């Protein structure tokens, strides 16, 4: 369980997050949606201890993120940032392999290799495994980064806009993979999404943020309604029902 209590964050005079309290239970997919600058990425990086907490507390499975040793947290929680740039010339297999560092401290065990191979298979990277990252397309690189986060094999997985650069095929593939690890392996996925229809189709719960506050919180059916969406995004959009899945017609 991720427990967030009274978390605020400021950069100078700008208030990024305003007194956020939130509990994300173990298991399932939680999607964070909201307009640009709502504070979604900041919240994610606070949970993943990439920024120091200014006020409030965050704990994961009872471990406070600001005092638990970094090494121990790396075995509980993995994060993929939105703006990850890999400038190093690493092969895909090497990159994915480094996600095992928290477990094996650099000496890959047989178990590590199994996890790495599975992750490469899962994201259709087996043929690209020996290619250098800088020779891949944007979408292939993104898949390699997601595969890396997967192979870290933590109970909690935080993904910041992982669908960036992915075409429809791989976007759907990634969301289905996330659904599978949530259902079959009991993983907890927290994902920032801009495509609210992906959130509607795959998430168990949607948390909408606006201007550093939580604007709405509920199941896709509860949250994806014209009046709620208008309050969050500032314009009116119709919502259709496709066999139980709400589909937001935000492009009309």
């Amino acid at each position, binding site marked *: 369980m991720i427990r967030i209590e009274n978390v605020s964050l400021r950069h100078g005079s700008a208030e990024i997050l305003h007194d956020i309290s939130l509990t994300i239970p173990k298991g399932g997919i939680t999607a964070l949606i909201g307009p640009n600058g709502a504070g979604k990425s900041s919240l994610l990086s606070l949970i993943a201890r990439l920024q120091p907490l200014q006020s409030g507390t965050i704990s994961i499975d009872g471990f406070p993120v600001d005092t638990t040793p970094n090494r121990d947290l790396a075995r509980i929680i993995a994060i993929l940032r939105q703006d990850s740039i*890999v400038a190093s010339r690493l092969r895909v297999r090497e990159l994915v392999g480094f996600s095992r*560092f928290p477990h094996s401290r650099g000496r890959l065990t047989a178990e590590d290799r199994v996890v790495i191979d599975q992750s490469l298979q899962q994201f259709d990277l087996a043929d690209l495994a020996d290619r250098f990252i800088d020779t891949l397309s944007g979408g292939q690189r993104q898949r390699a980064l997601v595969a890396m986060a997967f192979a870290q094999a933590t109970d909690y997985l935080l993904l910041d806009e992982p669908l960036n650069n992915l075409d429809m095929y791989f976007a759907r593939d990634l969301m289905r993979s996330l659904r599978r690890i949530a259902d079959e392996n009991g993983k907890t996925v927290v994902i920032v999404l801009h495509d609210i229809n992906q959130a509607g189709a795959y998430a168990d719960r949607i948390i909408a943020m606006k201007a550093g506050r939580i604007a709405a919180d509920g199941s896709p059916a509860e949250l994806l309604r014209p009046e709620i969406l208008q309050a969050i995004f500032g314009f009116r959009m119709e919502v259709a029902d496709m066999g139980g899945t709400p589909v937001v017609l935000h492009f009309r």
Partner: protein
Amino acid sequence: MSTAAVKQSPLTGWIAGLVLAILFVLSLFTGVDELPFGRVLSDGRGIELVLVSRLPRTLAAILAGASLAIAGLIMQTLARNRYVEPSTAGTAQSAELGILLVTLLWPAANLLTKGLIASAAALIGTSLFLATAHRLPPTQPFLVPLFGLVYGGVIGAAVTFVAWQADLLQYLSIWTNGDFSGVLRGRYELLWLGALMVVFAWFIADRLTIMTLGRDASIGLGIDYRRMLQLGLVIVSVISALSVVIVGVIPFVGLVVPNIVSRLMGDNLRGTLPAVAASGAVLVLGCDILGRLIRHPYEVPVGTVMGCVGGLIFLWLLFRRPSDV
């Protein structure tokens, strides 16, 4: 391309090792004093020449070359920029300032003391460089080396000014231009400390590679990023300062060698570190031998030779694939 690259990896290291062995032998028999191959063992003076001068000089070139290449590699890792190295980003200049101040204030200090104080000065200078470099926008990769050049230039100017005021300008060139001709037994052994740093770097190679992925990725994988930055800084500073104290600045090694190896083998340091060290040794020893031969029996300092050779290699690297920043 992929399988070729994999097969190529160990080969690059082996070739560098083989060339190094050949240069090692060549270096023992190159110099002002004629030393035919057969005379080494039969003639006592020959053995003496090898043990007192040629061997120490050869080892010094190998140690300096290997450790400077590694220092460049680590500096590039810390700055997350391929175009910096200790001699162009203020580290070497800070070390010079350190030695100069010791020489002025405490002329009787021995080499070890000078080395330590130079290392401390290099550490401070490099920390300031990195603190600024990390604030520069990552979308402008050439700002970091440009800032390094200006920063190193300013410290270098301060060094020259102090030396001029103290009438030590001639003395200064001992440190600013690398030269192995003064290396004798008993005068180079501190460079082994640099070799120790290389071994240490190999032990933390995985962590260093992860650091090239950036601060967030490093923390996400459970690495103490600040601590690793500090460790890296110490390695870079000690290696650069010791080589400045013992032989003087040798430019470009730390720049061109890691870049070439990265092109051939990638950036997984666990695999590439030995190749970087061996290639750095080859380059410096090769340039030193060249400097001994160009206008035999006189010598051209290795710093000058490297300035030309390294500069040419660097230009070639820049123009060959300009998009690959």
